[in-house]
């Protein structure tokens, strides 16, 4: 279907320990509305949980909500999460080594996503990943 408009999910989440579960529930509902049965829901929910957990930890001193965006492309589903945490900015925060996707979370992301990346600018940090859809 050429020119079909992908429905976008936009979520604003308080950076609390409940955020991963809230995000999984929202993504699960959203994916159920998509005409895309090529993604493995379990895998997507695991990846979303890792993304959001990482951002909650990263943004732990910040008050601004996390922003999760998801959309279905031609052969992928893409997730982006933004948090206002950014190393070296005005936020006075102890530098920590586990600020970024790390350890088992990173391992799951690298193994289950088709691509992922981290982008930083003065406003915050965006982590994105894509999952390939079958067929």
């Amino acid at each position: 279907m050429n020119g079909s408009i992908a429905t976008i999910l936009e979520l604003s989440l308080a950076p609390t320990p409940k955020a991963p579960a809230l995000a999984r529930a929202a993504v699960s509902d959203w994916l159920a509305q998509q005409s895309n049965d090529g993604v493995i829901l379990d895998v997507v929910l695991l990846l979303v949980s890792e993304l959001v957990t990482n951002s909650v930890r990263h943004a732990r001193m910040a008050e601004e909500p996390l922003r999760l965006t998801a959309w279905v492309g031609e052969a992928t589903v893409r997730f982006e999460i933004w948090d206002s945490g950014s190393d070296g900015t005005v936020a006075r925060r102890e530098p920590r080594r586990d600020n970024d996707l790390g350890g088992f979370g990173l391992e799951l992301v690298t193994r289950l996503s088709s691509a992922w990346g981290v982008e930083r600018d003065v406003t915050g940090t965006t982590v994105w990943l894509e999952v390939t859809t079958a067929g």
Partner: protein
Amino acid sequence: MPLESQPPDRVSPDAAVFRCEVSGKRDTAKVRALGELDLGTVAILDAKLAELREAGFRLMIVDLSGLSFIDSTGLRCLLEWDAEARRGNISIALVQGPRAVQRVFELTGTAARLRFVDA
């Protein structure tokens, strides 16, 4: 030291739902983990295991068969308790979870580090 079923620990219904069912026999406690184990709920399991250790149980069997979800935060909790058991005078064993749960152990190469037993 008999442990009857305890009131479930729950977090708010709009987030992950998780509770533990505990039963005990002599020095063995069985903890049935039910629901989703993630950043929002991992403290419930952690506190329960700490409580059972304090109560004197030497073997704790964590049954994952009722888990519907686990991520790296839940995995880390189980690995930390496994390490704690190896340091201390207790044992931890796990009963396998459903496929989506077991996959997290397999993808991270941690299944072999943990002790799995039959239910």
